[in-house]
């Protein structure tokens, strides 16, 4: 027992020496991680809303395109999409930096999920509400804008928060196309300092510090929504 404690203390004793060295790099890396996360989530939201509306539209072509997109996004790993964009496009003359590529690729890939979440939210609003919008002379665009989407957003909020957590985690994939975010720095540090476990646990803890508040918040929202629905029934 004592022996293990000693080992643990020895393990920890590395941090005070190394942290000042790592600090600057890691803080910049956290920023990049957050930029990739926020950027790709924003892209996914825009794509998701458009796809969800297309999926529910009267136009069969739009519906088909949306279904096709969602199907592909559901079946192809985000990492493959990143590689396709980052390594596959330059030979065709399209060159993008790693961070924009990561934002675009993760956004495209997550957009399909977001679309399904928003669609479920839209379908949860009663058809009568859309009709009530028609009777006061609204166009279908206005009905979506003022009646359907605000409610769909509220209903989908907990699931969207979970998606945000997934995007945060998936942003680590950007390291594999050399975007200078947390995992790339972790790997670089572990090969220069030969302290893989130390840096990986630290980076893991950073991810948790970012993810756990989000997941608590999502749970809170979910619970609040359930009790609200309970009132209504």
């Amino acid at each position, binding site marked *: 027992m004592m022996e293990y404690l000693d080992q643990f203390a020895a393990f920890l004793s590395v941090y005070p020496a190394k942290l000042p060295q790592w600090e600057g790099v890691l803080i910049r890396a956290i920023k990049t991680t957050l930029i990739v996360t926020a950027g790709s989530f924003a892209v996914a939201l825009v794509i998701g809303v458009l796809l969800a509306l297309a999926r529910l539209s009267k136009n069969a072509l739009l519906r088909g395109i949306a279904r096709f997109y969602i199907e592909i996004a559901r*079946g192809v790993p985000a990492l493959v999409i990143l*590689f396709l964009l980052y390594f596959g496009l330059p030979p065709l003359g399209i060159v993008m930096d790693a961070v924009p590529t990561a934002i675009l690729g993760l956004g495209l890939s997550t957009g399909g999920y977001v679309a399904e979440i928003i669609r479920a939210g839209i379908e949860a609003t009663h058809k009568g509400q859309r009709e009530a919008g028609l009777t006061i002379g609204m166009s279908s665009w206005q009905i979506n804008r003022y009646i359907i989407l605000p409610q769909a957003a509220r209903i989908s909020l907990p699931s969207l928060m979970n998606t945000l957590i997934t995007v945060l985690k998936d942003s680590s994939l950007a390291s594999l196309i050399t975007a200078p975010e947390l995992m790339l720095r972790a790997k670089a540090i572990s090969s220069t300092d030969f302290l893989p476990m130390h840096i990986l646990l630290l980076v893991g803890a950073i991810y948790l510090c970012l993810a756990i508040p989000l997941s608590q918040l999502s749970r809170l929202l979910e619970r609040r929504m359930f009790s609200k629905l309970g009132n209504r029934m």
Partner: protein
Amino acid sequence: MEQFGDLFTRSASHLEVLLQGAGVTVMITLGSFVMAVTIGLVLAVARTWKIRPLNALIAIYVEVFRGLPTLTLLFICYFGLTYVGIKLNPLPAAIIGLGLSGGAYCTEIFRSGISALHHGQREAAAAIGMTPMRAMRFVILPQALRITLPPLGNYAIGLIKDTAVASAVAAPEILFRARNLSTETFDTALIYLLVAVLYLVMTFPLARWVDHLEKKRKAWQ
């Protein structure tokens, strides 16, 4: 015409290599799936015993392993564990890493499956003289399994996609072979498109099955 013929032969030769990788992808998927479901079932049932410290530990496990990126977990298994003298090969490292994070998901899936059942059911089972163990085995779990099939299917789809991350620890699965192939042939766009198609082919039947289950459940409600 010639170009298409060329495209066809190129695709065929790439596919030969990629398909070998697909075998490894399937192995990683199956291995980590079994591990994840086992962990999930055990922990979800253990939670129902309502032993405080145990539940706290389970909750911590779930939070931590759901919050960590898969890539971080794989790196910890592959590079990190060498610090404590454990040197895992890429394949076991991938299976253990994916299995551990999957275990956290499956615990949640089974937990909500079990809690979706009215506790009246448990009481009804007790009323006809079943022990809690038997009630779990014959009444609760069979129903919970049915409820959890769609989310489990979705998890499996996600898992197949997640195995692509194993390429980063040099497990010779599809994407790893694709990377090597593209540095050898520079046929990058075609290779990654083929990879995308391969993953689609693997996930498609599962996706259809899940959709089918969900439709059935909707009709049932």
